[in-house]
Protein backbone atom coordinates (compact mmCIF):
# COMPACT_ATOMS: atom_id res chain seq x y z
CA UNK A 1 0.00 0.00 0.00
CA UNK A 2 1.28 3.45 -0.93
CA UNK A 3 2.15 5.77 1.95
CA UNK A 4 -0.26 8.65 2.47
CA UNK A 5 0.82 12.14 1.35
CA UNK A 6 -1.20 13.73 4.09
CA UNK A 7 -2.43 12.21 7.34
CA UNK A 8 -4.58 14.27 9.68
CA UNK A 9 -4.88 12.81 13.16
CA UNK A 10 -7.47 13.68 15.84
CA UNK A 11 -7.94 17.24 14.61
CA UNK A 12 -9.89 19.45 17.02
CA UNK A 13 -11.36 22.89 16.42
CA UNK A 14 -13.65 25.10 18.49
CA UNK A 15 -15.25 28.35 17.39
CA UNK A 16 -16.38 29.76 20.71
CA UNK A 17 -19.14 27.42 21.85
CA UNK A 18 -19.22 25.55 18.51
CA UNK A 19 -17.19 22.35 18.56
CA UNK A 20 -16.62 22.23 14.79
CA UNK A 21 -14.10 19.36 14.62
CA UNK A 22 -14.13 16.55 17.20
CA UNK A 23 -11.01 14.48 16.67
CA UNK A 24 -11.10 14.02 12.90
CA UNK A 25 -8.78 11.60 11.05
CA UNK A 26 -8.21 11.82 7.32
CA UNK A 27 -5.67 10.34 4.87
CA UNK A 28 -4.89 11.34 1.33
CA UNK A 29 -3.01 8.94 -0.94
CA UNK A 30 -0.74 10.25 -3.72
CA UNK A 31 -2.55 10.99 -6.96
CA UNK A 32 -5.99 10.06 -5.69
CA UNK A 33 -9.21 12.05 -5.76
CA UNK A 34 -10.75 11.90 -2.28
CA UNK A 35 -14.34 13.05 -1.98
CA UNK A 36 -15.16 14.80 1.31
CA UNK A 37 -18.88 14.82 1.98
CA UNK A 38 -21.26 15.62 4.82
CA UNK A 39 -24.21 17.72 5.75
CA UNK A 40 -24.09 21.50 6.07
CA UNK A 41 -21.95 22.53 9.06
CA UNK A 42 -20.40 19.06 9.28
CA UNK A 43 -16.98 20.70 9.37
CA UNK A 44 -15.70 19.97 5.86
CA UNK A 45 -14.52 23.48 5.06
CA UNK A 46 -13.05 23.93 8.52
CA UNK A 47 -11.09 20.67 8.29
CA UNK A 48 -9.65 21.66 4.92
CA UNK A 49 -8.80 25.18 6.09
CA UNK A 50 -6.82 23.56 8.88
CA UNK A 51 -4.93 21.58 6.25
CA UNK A 52 -4.34 24.64 4.06
CA UNK A 53 -3.00 26.69 6.97
CA UNK A 54 -5.86 29.20 6.93
CA UNK A 55 -7.15 28.10 10.37
CA UNK A 56 -4.95 26.91 13.26
CA UNK A 57 -6.30 23.70 14.85
CA UNK A 58 -6.86 23.47 18.63
CA UNK A 59 -5.49 19.95 18.75
CA UNK A 60 -4.37 16.97 16.71
CA UNK A 61 -1.55 16.39 14.31
CA UNK A 62 -0.83 16.69 10.60
CA UNK A 63 1.74 14.43 8.93
CA UNK A 64 3.03 15.41 5.51
CA UNK A 65 4.81 12.52 3.77
CA UNK A 66 5.12 10.94 7.21
CA UNK A 67 6.70 13.93 8.96
CA UNK A 68 4.79 16.04 11.48
CA UNK A 69 4.09 19.57 10.22
CA UNK A 70 2.42 22.67 11.61
CA UNK A 71 1.03 25.34 9.29
CA UNK A 72 0.75 28.82 10.78
CA UNK A 73 -0.33 30.36 7.46
CA UNK A 74 -1.40 29.39 3.95
CA UNK A 75 2.13 30.29 2.84
CA UNK A 76 3.61 27.54 5.04
CA UNK A 77 1.20 24.93 3.69
CA UNK A 78 1.93 26.18 0.18
CA UNK A 79 5.65 25.69 0.77
CA UNK A 80 4.88 21.98 1.30
CA UNK A 81 2.77 21.83 -1.82
CA UNK A 82 -0.72 22.09 -0.35
CA UNK A 83 -3.11 24.43 -2.16
CA UNK A 84 -6.76 25.17 -1.54
CA UNK A 85 -9.39 26.75 -3.77
CA UNK A 86 -11.84 28.32 -1.34
CA UNK A 87 -15.60 28.04 -1.55
CA UNK A 88 -16.03 31.64 -2.71
CA UNK A 89 -13.22 31.38 -5.32
CA UNK A 90 -11.13 34.09 -3.64
CA UNK A 91 -10.54 36.05 -6.82
CA UNK A 92 -10.00 39.78 -7.20
CA UNK A 93 -12.85 40.91 -9.44
CA UNK A 94 -11.11 44.16 -10.30
CA UNK A 95 -8.06 42.38 -11.74
CA UNK A 96 -7.65 40.48 -14.98
CA UNK A 97 -7.17 36.74 -15.40
CA UNK A 98 -3.38 36.88 -15.59
CA UNK A 99 -3.17 39.06 -12.49
CA UNK A 100 -5.42 36.70 -10.57
CA UNK A 101 -3.30 33.71 -11.48
CA UNK A 102 -0.14 35.53 -10.34
CA UNK A 103 -1.75 37.31 -7.37
CA UNK A 104 1.01 38.45 -5.05
CA UNK A 105 3.71 36.71 -7.12
CA UNK A 106 4.04 39.32 -9.84
CA UNK A 107 6.92 38.45 -12.17
CA UNK A 108 9.45 41.25 -11.77
CA UNK A 109 11.95 42.53 -14.31
CA UNK A 110 15.05 44.45 -13.32
CA UNK A 111 14.18 44.09 -9.65
CA UNK A 112 11.50 46.81 -9.59
CA UNK A 113 9.05 46.65 -12.47
CA UNK A 114 6.30 44.09 -12.94
CA UNK A 115 6.79 42.26 -16.22
CA UNK A 116 3.24 42.33 -17.46
CA UNK A 117 3.99 40.61 -20.77
CA UNK A 118 5.80 37.72 -19.10
CA UNK A 119 2.92 37.35 -16.65
CA UNK A 120 0.37 37.24 -19.47
CA UNK A 121 2.39 34.76 -21.51
CA UNK A 122 2.85 32.49 -18.50
CA UNK A 123 -0.87 32.71 -17.71
CA UNK A 124 -1.74 31.85 -21.30
CA UNK A 125 0.61 28.87 -21.26
CA UNK A 126 -0.85 27.72 -17.95
CA UNK A 127 -4.44 27.93 -19.20
CA UNK A 128 -3.53 26.23 -22.45
CA UNK A 129 -1.86 23.34 -20.65
CA UNK A 130 -5.02 22.88 -18.57
CA UNK A 131 -7.15 23.31 -21.70
CA UNK A 132 -9.08 26.14 -20.05
CA UNK A 133 -10.17 28.45 -22.79
CA UNK A 134 -10.77 32.13 -22.15
CA UNK A 135 -11.16 34.98 -24.62
CA UNK A 136 -8.06 36.76 -23.32
CA UNK A 137 -6.03 36.76 -20.11
CA UNK A 138 -6.49 40.55 -19.95
CA UNK A 139 -10.23 40.25 -19.27
CA UNK A 140 -11.24 41.24 -15.74
CA UNK A 141 -12.53 38.16 -13.93
CA UNK A 142 -15.73 39.98 -12.96
CA UNK A 143 -16.82 39.58 -16.59
CA UNK A 144 -16.34 35.80 -16.61
CA UNK A 145 -19.02 33.16 -16.14
CA UNK A 146 -19.00 31.09 -12.95
CA UNK A 147 -17.33 28.12 -14.62
CA UNK A 148 -14.51 30.23 -16.06
CA UNK A 149 -13.99 31.93 -12.71
CA UNK A 150 -13.71 28.56 -11.01
CA UNK A 151 -11.25 27.43 -13.68
CA UNK A 152 -9.13 30.54 -13.14
CA UNK A 153 -9.12 29.87 -9.39
CA UNK A 154 -8.01 26.28 -10.02
CA UNK A 155 -5.38 27.45 -12.51
CA UNK A 156 -3.97 29.78 -9.88
CA UNK A 157 -3.77 26.96 -7.35
CA UNK A 158 -2.09 24.69 -9.91
CA UNK A 159 0.44 27.35 -10.86
CA UNK A 160 2.09 26.59 -7.50
CA UNK A 161 2.67 23.01 -8.71
CA UNK A 162 0.98 21.55 -5.65
CA UNK A 163 1.20 17.93 -4.52
CA UNK A 164 -2.22 18.31 -2.90
CA UNK A 165 -5.11 20.37 -4.22
CA UNK A 166 -8.17 21.00 -2.06
CA UNK A 167 -11.35 22.11 -3.82
CA UNK A 168 -14.23 23.40 -1.70
CA UNK A 169 -17.50 22.80 -3.56
CA UNK A 170 -16.01 23.78 -6.92
CA UNK A 171 -19.20 23.06 -8.83
CA UNK A 172 -21.74 24.72 -6.56
CA UNK A 173 -23.62 27.33 -8.62
CA UNK A 174 -22.22 26.06 -11.93
CA UNK A 175 -24.24 25.13 -14.98
CA UNK A 176 -24.11 21.46 -16.07
CA UNK A 177 -21.72 22.38 -18.87
CA UNK A 178 -19.37 24.30 -16.61
CA UNK A 179 -19.57 21.52 -14.01
CA UNK A 180 -18.50 19.02 -16.63
CA UNK A 181 -15.53 21.22 -17.60
CA UNK A 182 -14.35 21.66 -14.04
CA UNK A 183 -14.71 17.95 -13.26
CA UNK A 184 -12.76 16.85 -16.33
CA UNK A 185 -10.08 19.36 -15.37
CA UNK A 186 -9.88 17.73 -11.93
CA UNK A 187 -9.90 14.22 -13.37
CA UNK A 188 -6.95 15.22 -15.61
CA UNK A 189 -4.91 16.24 -12.58
CA UNK A 190 -4.57 12.60 -11.62
CA UNK A 191 -2.27 12.15 -14.60
CA UNK A 192 -0.02 14.83 -13.14
CA UNK A 193 0.16 12.96 -9.84
CA UNK A 194 -1.69 15.67 -7.92
CA UNK A 195 -3.72 14.42 -4.97
CA UNK A 196 -7.13 16.08 -4.86
CA UNK A 197 -9.57 16.51 -1.98
CA UNK A 198 -12.96 17.39 -3.40
CA UNK A 199 -15.59 18.77 -1.04
CA UNK A 200 -18.99 18.32 -2.61
CA UNK A 201 -22.67 17.98 -1.91
CA UNK A 202 -23.21 16.23 -5.24
CA UNK A 203 -22.59 12.53 -4.73
CA UNK A 204 -22.78 11.80 -8.47
CA UNK A 205 -19.68 13.87 -9.10
CA UNK A 206 -17.79 12.28 -6.23
CA UNK A 207 -18.70 8.90 -7.71
CA UNK A 208 -17.81 10.06 -11.22
CA UNK A 209 -14.24 11.16 -10.52
CA UNK A 210 -13.43 10.08 -6.94
CA UNK A 211 -11.33 7.13 -5.79
CA UNK A 212 -12.43 7.21 -2.17
CA UNK A 213 -14.99 9.16 -0.22
CA UNK A 214 -14.78 10.32 3.40
CA UNK A 215 -17.91 11.24 5.34
CA UNK A 216 -18.06 13.85 8.12
CA UNK A 217 -20.99 14.35 10.43
CA UNK A 218 -21.19 17.00 13.14
CA UNK A 219 -17.45 17.37 13.36
CA UNK A 220 -16.71 13.64 13.38
CA UNK A 221 -15.24 11.42 10.71
CA UNK A 222 -17.78 8.62 10.39
CA UNK A 223 -16.43 6.55 7.50
CA UNK A 224 -14.18 6.34 4.45
CA UNK A 225 -15.17 4.10 1.55
CA UNK A 226 -13.67 3.11 -1.76
CA UNK A 227 -15.93 4.55 -4.39
CA UNK A 228 -15.96 1.39 -6.48
CA UNK A 229 -17.04 -0.62 -3.45
CA UNK A 230 -19.79 1.76 -2.32
CA UNK A 231 -23.15 2.98 -3.55
CA UNK A 232 -24.52 6.50 -3.48
CA UNK A 233 -27.38 5.33 -1.27
CA UNK A 234 -24.96 3.93 1.24
CA UNK A 235 -22.97 7.18 1.41
CA UNK A 236 -26.18 9.17 1.68
CA UNK A 237 -27.18 6.97 4.60
CA UNK A 238 -23.82 7.65 6.26
CA UNK A 239 -24.25 11.40 5.75
CA UNK A 240 -27.72 11.39 7.26
CA UNK A 241 -27.44 8.87 10.10
CA UNK A 242 -23.73 9.14 10.77
CA UNK A 243 -23.62 5.40 10.01
CA UNK A 244 -24.37 4.25 13.55
CA UNK A 245 -25.31 0.87 12.14
CA UNK A 246 -22.26 0.71 9.91
CA UNK A 247 -19.95 1.91 12.65
CA UNK A 248 -20.95 -0.93 14.97
CA UNK A 249 -20.83 -3.51 12.23
CA UNK A 250 -17.32 -3.70 10.77
CA UNK A 251 -16.16 -6.05 13.52
CA UNK A 252 -18.68 -8.56 12.22
CA UNK A 253 -17.38 -8.21 8.64
CA UNK A 254 -13.96 -9.79 8.47
CA UNK A 255 -13.68 -9.46 4.66
CA UNK A 256 -12.44 -5.85 4.76
CA UNK A 257 -11.79 -4.45 1.29
CA UNK A 258 -14.30 -6.81 -0.32
CA UNK A 259 -17.72 -6.02 1.04
CA UNK A 260 -19.71 -3.03 -0.14
CA UNK A 261 -19.68 -1.38 3.30
CA UNK A 262 -16.11 -2.09 4.27
CA UNK A 263 -14.13 0.74 5.80
CA UNK A 264 -10.87 1.58 4.10
CA UNK A 265 -7.63 2.75 5.61
CA UNK A 266 -6.85 2.47 9.33
Amino acid at each position, binding site marked *: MTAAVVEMRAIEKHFGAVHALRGVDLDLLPGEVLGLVGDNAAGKSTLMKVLSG*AIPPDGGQILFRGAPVRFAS*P*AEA*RARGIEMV*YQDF*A*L*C*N*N*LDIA*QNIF*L*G*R*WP*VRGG*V*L*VDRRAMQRAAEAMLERLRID*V*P*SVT*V*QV*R*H*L*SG*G*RRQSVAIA*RALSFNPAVLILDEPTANL*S*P*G*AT*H*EVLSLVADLKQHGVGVILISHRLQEVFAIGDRVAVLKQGRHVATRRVRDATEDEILELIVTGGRAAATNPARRPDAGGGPESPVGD
Partner: protein
Amino acid sequence: MTVEHAASAVAEAGVAPRRGWGGRVMGSYEAAIYAALLLVVAAVSIATPRFLSPDNLFEVARNFSFIAAAGVGEAIVIIAGGGGIDLSVGSVMGLGGVVATKLLGMNLGLLPAVGLGVAAGWACGAVNGLLVTKAKMTPLIPTLGMLSIAHGLALVITQGYPLSSLGPAGPAFIALGAGYVGPVPNPVVYMALVVGAGWAVLTHTPFGYDLYAVGGNDEASHLSGIHVTRVRLAAYMISGALAALTGILLAARLSVGDATTGQGEELNVIAAAVIGGVSLLGGQGSVLGLFAGAALIGVLLNAMVLTGVPAFWQEVVIGSTIIVAVLLDRLRIRLARD
Protein backbone atom coordinates in the same frame (compact mmCIF):
# COMPACT_ATOMS: atom_id res chain seq x y z
CA MET B 1 -25.75 16.61 -21.36
CA THR B 2 -23.55 17.10 -24.39
CA VAL B 3 -26.16 19.38 -25.94
CA GLU B 4 -26.38 21.42 -22.77
CA HIS B 5 -22.62 21.47 -22.56
CA ALA B 6 -22.29 22.76 -26.10
CA ALA B 7 -25.04 25.30 -25.54
CA SER B 8 -23.46 26.69 -22.40
CA ALA B 9 -20.04 26.76 -24.04
CA VAL B 10 -21.50 28.80 -26.88
CA ALA B 11 -23.30 31.08 -24.46
CA GLU B 12 -20.16 31.63 -22.42
CA ALA B 13 -17.95 32.12 -25.44
CA GLY B 14 -20.47 34.61 -26.80
CA VAL B 15 -21.09 36.49 -23.59
CA ALA B 16 -17.62 36.78 -22.16
CA PRO B 17 -15.99 38.89 -24.89
CA ARG B 18 -18.97 41.23 -25.08
CA ARG B 19 -18.81 41.84 -21.34
CA GLY B 20 -15.07 42.24 -21.70
CA TRP B 21 -15.71 45.01 -24.19
CA GLY B 22 -18.20 46.57 -21.78
CA GLY B 23 -15.56 46.32 -19.10
CA ARG B 24 -13.13 48.20 -21.29
CA VAL B 25 -15.68 50.98 -21.74
CA MET B 26 -16.11 51.14 -17.96
CA GLY B 27 -12.34 51.13 -17.65
CA SER B 28 -12.14 54.10 -19.96
CA TYR B 29 -13.91 56.24 -17.37
CA GLU B 30 -10.66 58.18 -17.50
CA ALA B 31 -11.36 59.00 -21.14
CA ALA B 32 -14.80 60.26 -20.13
CA ILE B 33 -13.42 62.50 -17.40
CA TYR B 34 -10.83 63.95 -19.80
CA ALA B 35 -13.64 64.61 -22.28
CA ALA B 36 -15.62 66.34 -19.53
CA LEU B 37 -12.54 68.40 -18.66
CA LEU B 38 -12.21 69.52 -22.29
CA LEU B 39 -15.91 70.42 -22.41
CA VAL B 40 -15.67 72.52 -19.25
CA VAL B 41 -12.50 74.22 -20.53
CA ALA B 42 -14.26 75.02 -23.82
CA ALA B 43 -17.33 76.39 -22.01
CA VAL B 44 -15.25 78.49 -19.63
CA SER B 45 -13.08 79.92 -22.43
CA ILE B 46 -16.16 80.93 -24.38
CA ALA B 47 -17.66 82.59 -21.30
CA THR B 48 -14.40 84.31 -20.30
CA PRO B 49 -11.79 84.44 -23.09
CA ARG B 50 -9.23 85.60 -20.50
CA PHE B 51 -9.23 82.00 -19.20
CA LEU B 52 -7.09 80.75 -22.08
CA SER B 53 -4.27 83.28 -21.63
CA PRO B 54 -1.01 81.42 -20.81
CA ASP B 55 -0.62 83.37 -17.58
CA ASN B 56 -4.05 82.34 -16.38
CA LEU B 57 -3.56 78.72 -17.46
CA PHE B 58 -0.33 78.46 -15.46
CA GLU B 59 -2.10 80.11 -12.55
CA VAL B 60 -4.84 77.48 -12.74
CA ALA B 61 -2.27 74.69 -12.98
CA ARG B 62 -0.29 76.10 -10.07
CA ASN B 63 -3.42 76.21 -7.93
CA PHE B 64 -4.60 72.71 -8.63
CA SER B 65 -1.06 71.28 -8.51
CA PHE B 66 -1.30 71.12 -4.71
CA ILE B 67 -4.62 69.27 -4.93
CA ALA B 68 -3.25 66.81 -7.48
CA ALA B 69 -0.02 66.12 -5.58
CA ALA B 70 -1.74 65.47 -2.25
CA GLY B 71 -4.42 63.62 -4.21
CA VAL B 72 -1.94 60.97 -5.32
CA GLY B 73 -1.54 59.90 -1.68
CA GLU B 74 -5.28 60.10 -1.09
CA ALA B 75 -5.94 57.96 -4.18
CA ILE B 76 -3.46 55.34 -2.96
CA VAL B 77 -5.25 55.15 0.41
CA ILE B 78 -8.68 54.85 -1.23
CA ILE B 79 -7.54 52.26 -3.79
CA ALA B 80 -6.10 50.11 -0.98
CA GLY B 81 -9.73 49.55 0.06
CA GLY B 82 -11.23 48.49 3.37
CA GLY B 83 -13.15 51.78 3.40
CA GLY B 84 -9.82 53.58 3.25
CA ILE B 85 -9.88 57.37 3.24
CA ASP B 86 -7.57 60.02 4.67
CA LEU B 87 -9.43 63.03 6.07
CA SER B 88 -6.28 64.47 7.62
CA VAL B 89 -4.43 65.50 4.43
CA GLY B 90 -5.40 69.18 4.71
CA SER B 91 -4.21 69.53 8.31
CA VAL B 92 -1.09 67.48 7.62
CA MET B 93 -0.28 69.88 4.77
CA GLY B 94 -0.45 72.71 7.30
CA LEU B 95 1.65 70.80 9.83
CA GLY B 96 4.34 69.95 7.24
CA GLY B 97 4.66 73.60 6.23
CA VAL B 98 4.79 74.79 9.83
CA VAL B 99 7.41 72.22 10.90
CA ALA B 100 9.64 73.06 7.93
CA THR B 101 9.35 76.85 8.34
CA LYS B 102 9.84 76.63 12.12
CA LEU B 103 13.05 74.64 11.60
CA LEU B 104 14.24 77.05 8.92
CA GLY B 105 13.66 79.86 11.41
CA MET B 106 15.90 77.93 13.83
CA ASN B 107 18.64 78.24 11.18
CA LEU B 108 18.40 74.66 9.93
CA GLY B 109 19.38 74.00 6.31
CA LEU B 110 16.84 73.59 3.52
CA LEU B 111 17.12 69.82 3.16
CA PRO B 112 16.93 68.90 6.87
CA ALA B 113 14.01 71.28 7.38
CA VAL B 114 12.08 69.86 4.44
CA GLY B 115 13.06 66.30 5.41
CA LEU B 116 11.82 66.70 8.99
CA GLY B 117 8.62 68.36 7.77
CA VAL B 118 7.96 65.36 5.53
CA ALA B 119 8.84 63.03 8.43
CA ALA B 120 6.17 64.73 10.56
CA GLY B 121 3.56 64.01 7.88
CA TRP B 122 4.83 60.46 7.51
CA ALA B 123 4.44 59.97 11.28
CA CYS B 124 0.83 61.23 11.12
CA GLY B 125 0.21 58.74 8.30
CA ALA B 126 1.85 55.95 10.30
CA VAL B 127 -0.46 56.64 13.26
CA ASN B 128 -3.49 56.67 10.94
CA GLY B 129 -2.35 53.44 9.31
CA LEU B 130 -1.63 51.65 12.59
CA LEU B 131 -5.02 52.64 14.02
CA VAL B 132 -6.73 51.36 10.87
CA THR B 133 -4.78 48.13 10.38
CA LYS B 134 -3.83 47.09 13.91
CA ALA B 135 -6.58 48.63 16.04
CA LYS B 136 -9.05 47.85 13.22
CA MET B 137 -10.73 51.25 13.38
CA THR B 138 -12.96 52.54 10.59
CA PRO B 139 -10.59 54.82 8.61
CA LEU B 140 -13.00 57.76 8.96
CA ILE B 141 -12.41 57.95 12.71
CA PRO B 142 -8.62 57.99 13.19
CA THR B 143 -8.06 60.25 10.19
CA LEU B 144 -10.77 62.63 11.44
CA GLY B 145 -8.99 62.64 14.80
CA MET B 146 -5.69 63.24 13.02
CA LEU B 147 -7.26 66.17 11.14
CA SER B 148 -7.73 67.82 14.52
CA ILE B 149 -4.45 66.61 16.06
CA ALA B 150 -2.25 67.78 13.17
CA HIS B 151 -3.96 71.16 13.07
CA GLY B 152 -3.62 71.46 16.84
CA LEU B 153 0.09 70.57 16.73
CA ALA B 154 0.64 73.15 13.99
CA LEU B 155 -1.05 75.77 16.19
CA VAL B 156 1.09 74.72 19.17
CA ILE B 157 4.21 75.25 17.04
CA THR B 158 3.15 78.61 15.62
CA GLN B 159 1.29 79.79 18.73
CA GLY B 160 -1.24 81.10 16.25
CA TYR B 161 1.17 83.49 14.48
CA PRO B 162 2.44 83.00 10.93
CA LEU B 163 6.12 82.03 10.80
CA SER B 164 7.80 84.40 8.38
CA SER B 165 11.40 84.64 9.61
CA LEU B 166 12.90 81.75 7.70
CA GLY B 167 16.60 81.99 8.58
CA PRO B 168 19.56 81.83 6.23
CA ALA B 169 17.96 79.17 3.98
CA GLY B 170 14.81 81.31 3.69
CA PRO B 171 15.50 82.74 0.22
CA ALA B 172 16.26 79.30 -1.22
CA PHE B 173 13.07 78.00 0.38
CA ILE B 174 10.95 80.81 -1.06
CA ALA B 175 12.53 80.31 -4.48
CA LEU B 176 11.42 76.68 -4.29
CA GLY B 177 7.77 77.75 -4.28
CA ALA B 178 7.98 80.90 -6.39
CA GLY B 179 10.51 79.82 -9.02
CA TYR B 180 10.07 78.56 -12.55
CA VAL B 181 11.57 75.90 -14.78
CA GLY B 182 11.50 77.72 -18.11
CA PRO B 183 7.95 79.11 -18.28
CA VAL B 184 6.58 76.47 -15.92
CA PRO B 185 6.02 77.39 -12.26
CA ASN B 186 7.83 75.09 -9.80
CA PRO B 187 4.64 73.76 -8.16
CA VAL B 188 3.47 72.57 -11.57
CA VAL B 189 6.81 70.81 -12.13
CA TYR B 190 6.47 69.26 -8.67
CA MET B 191 2.95 68.08 -9.50
CA ALA B 192 4.14 66.56 -12.78
CA LEU B 193 6.87 64.67 -10.93
CA VAL B 194 4.52 63.39 -8.21
CA VAL B 195 1.78 62.41 -10.66
CA GLY B 196 4.33 60.72 -12.94
CA ALA B 197 5.90 58.84 -10.05
CA GLY B 198 2.49 57.87 -8.69
CA TRP B 199 1.40 56.59 -12.09
CA ALA B 200 4.59 54.54 -12.46
CA VAL B 201 4.34 53.05 -8.97
CA LEU B 202 0.67 52.12 -9.31
CA THR B 203 0.85 50.64 -12.79
CA HIS B 204 4.31 49.09 -12.93
CA THR B 205 5.57 48.04 -9.51
CA PRO B 206 4.71 45.05 -7.32
CA PHE B 207 3.52 47.47 -4.64
CA GLY B 208 1.06 49.01 -7.09
CA TYR B 209 -0.23 45.59 -8.09
CA ASP B 210 -0.54 44.61 -4.42
CA LEU B 211 -2.49 47.80 -3.80
CA TYR B 212 -5.13 47.00 -6.41
CA ALA B 213 -5.29 43.36 -5.29
CA VAL B 214 -5.80 44.32 -1.63
CA GLY B 215 -8.41 46.89 -2.63
CA GLY B 216 -10.23 44.36 -4.80
CA ASN B 217 -10.34 41.46 -2.32
CA ASP B 218 -8.30 41.62 0.86
CA GLU B 219 -9.20 38.06 1.86
CA ALA B 220 -7.99 36.63 -1.46
CA SER B 221 -4.87 38.78 -1.27
CA HIS B 222 -4.11 37.55 2.22
CA LEU B 223 -4.57 33.93 1.21
CA SER B 224 -2.18 34.51 -1.71
CA GLY B 225 0.50 35.72 0.67
CA ILE B 226 0.17 39.50 0.19
CA HIS B 227 0.76 41.33 3.48
CA VAL B 228 -2.53 43.20 3.51
CA THR B 229 -1.89 45.26 6.65
CA ARG B 230 1.60 46.21 5.48
CA VAL B 231 0.26 47.44 2.14
CA ARG B 232 -2.47 49.52 3.79
CA LEU B 233 -0.09 50.91 6.41
CA ALA B 234 2.28 51.95 3.62
CA ALA B 235 -0.62 53.67 1.83
CA TYR B 236 -1.36 55.88 4.85
CA MET B 237 2.35 56.64 5.33
CA ILE B 238 2.65 57.72 1.69
CA SER B 239 -0.45 59.87 2.00
CA GLY B 240 0.88 61.59 5.13
CA ALA B 241 4.37 62.17 3.73
CA LEU B 242 3.05 63.43 0.39
CA ALA B 243 0.56 65.77 2.08
CA ALA B 244 3.34 67.23 4.24
CA LEU B 245 5.69 67.67 1.25
CA THR B 246 2.88 69.38 -0.65
CA GLY B 247 2.15 71.61 2.34
CA ILE B 248 5.84 72.54 2.55
CA LEU B 249 5.76 73.61 -1.08
CA LEU B 250 2.60 75.59 -0.46
CA ALA B 251 4.31 77.33 2.48
CA ALA B 252 7.28 78.10 0.24
CA ARG B 253 4.94 79.56 -2.35
CA LEU B 254 3.25 81.72 0.30
CA SER B 255 6.67 82.49 1.95
CA VAL B 256 5.14 81.77 5.33
CA GLY B 257 4.40 78.88 7.67
CA ASP B 258 0.80 79.09 8.83
CA ALA B 259 -1.23 76.48 10.71
CA THR B 260 -4.34 77.36 8.73
CA THR B 261 -2.69 76.63 5.36
CA GLY B 262 -4.34 73.57 3.84
CA GLN B 263 -7.40 73.81 6.09
CA GLY B 264 -10.36 72.25 4.28
CA GLU B 265 -8.12 71.12 1.44
CA GLU B 266 -9.06 67.49 2.20
CA LEU B 267 -12.41 68.17 0.55
CA ASN B 268 -10.80 69.26 -2.72
CA VAL B 269 -8.37 66.36 -2.58
CA ILE B 270 -11.02 63.72 -1.96
CA ALA B 271 -13.28 65.32 -4.58
CA ALA B 272 -10.45 65.21 -7.14
CA ALA B 273 -9.90 61.50 -6.49
CA VAL B 274 -13.57 60.56 -6.62
CA ILE B 275 -14.36 62.72 -9.66
CA GLY B 276 -11.30 61.17 -11.29
CA GLY B 277 -12.79 57.70 -10.94
CA VAL B 278 -11.16 56.46 -7.73
CA SER B 279 -13.95 54.34 -6.25
CA LEU B 280 -14.56 54.66 -2.52
CA LEU B 281 -15.08 50.89 -2.47
CA GLY B 282 -11.39 50.42 -3.29
CA GLY B 283 -9.47 48.65 -6.03
CA GLN B 284 -10.58 51.02 -8.80
CA GLY B 285 -9.20 54.20 -10.26
CA SER B 286 -5.93 55.63 -11.44
CA VAL B 287 -3.52 58.48 -10.90
CA LEU B 288 -4.26 59.84 -14.38
CA GLY B 289 -7.97 59.93 -13.53
CA LEU B 290 -7.19 61.71 -10.27
CA PHE B 291 -5.12 64.25 -12.21
CA ALA B 292 -8.08 65.00 -14.48
CA GLY B 293 -10.32 65.30 -11.42
CA ALA B 294 -7.94 67.81 -9.83
CA ALA B 295 -7.71 69.76 -13.10
CA LEU B 296 -11.50 69.85 -13.35
CA ILE B 297 -11.78 71.28 -9.83
CA GLY B 298 -9.00 73.78 -10.58
CA VAL B 299 -10.76 74.96 -13.74
CA LEU B 300 -14.12 75.23 -11.98
CA LEU B 301 -12.63 77.25 -9.10
CA ASN B 302 -10.83 79.54 -11.54
CA ALA B 303 -13.94 79.97 -13.65
CA MET B 304 -15.90 80.99 -10.58
CA VAL B 305 -13.24 83.57 -9.73
CA LEU B 306 -13.13 84.91 -13.31
CA THR B 307 -16.91 85.14 -13.54
CA GLY B 308 -17.16 86.82 -10.15
CA VAL B 309 -18.94 84.07 -8.19
CA PRO B 310 -18.61 85.01 -4.49
CA ALA B 311 -15.99 82.95 -2.61
CA PHE B 312 -18.58 81.54 -0.21
CA TRP B 313 -20.38 79.87 -3.07
CA GLN B 314 -17.24 78.09 -4.16
CA GLU B 315 -17.43 75.77 -1.15
CA VAL B 316 -21.04 74.98 -2.00
CA VAL B 317 -20.00 74.06 -5.53
CA ILE B 318 -17.11 71.83 -4.42
CA GLY B 319 -19.29 70.07 -1.85
CA SER B 320 -21.97 69.43 -4.46
CA THR B 321 -19.37 68.16 -6.91
CA ILE B 322 -18.20 65.57 -4.37
CA ILE B 323 -21.74 64.34 -3.80
CA VAL B 324 -22.42 64.10 -7.53
CA ALA B 325 -19.13 62.25 -8.04
CA VAL B 326 -19.97 59.71 -5.34
CA LEU B 327 -23.42 59.22 -6.88
CA LEU B 328 -21.74 58.60 -10.24
CA ASP B 329 -19.40 56.14 -8.52
CA ARG B 330 -22.40 54.20 -7.14
CA LEU B 331 -23.99 54.26 -10.59
CA ARG B 332 -20.83 52.91 -12.21
CA ILE B 333 -20.66 50.10 -9.66
CA ARG B 334 -24.25 49.16 -10.39
CA LEU B 335 -23.61 49.25 -14.14
CA ALA B 336 -20.46 47.16 -13.78
CA ARG B 337 -22.45 44.50 -11.90
CA ASP B 338 -24.95 43.97 -14.71
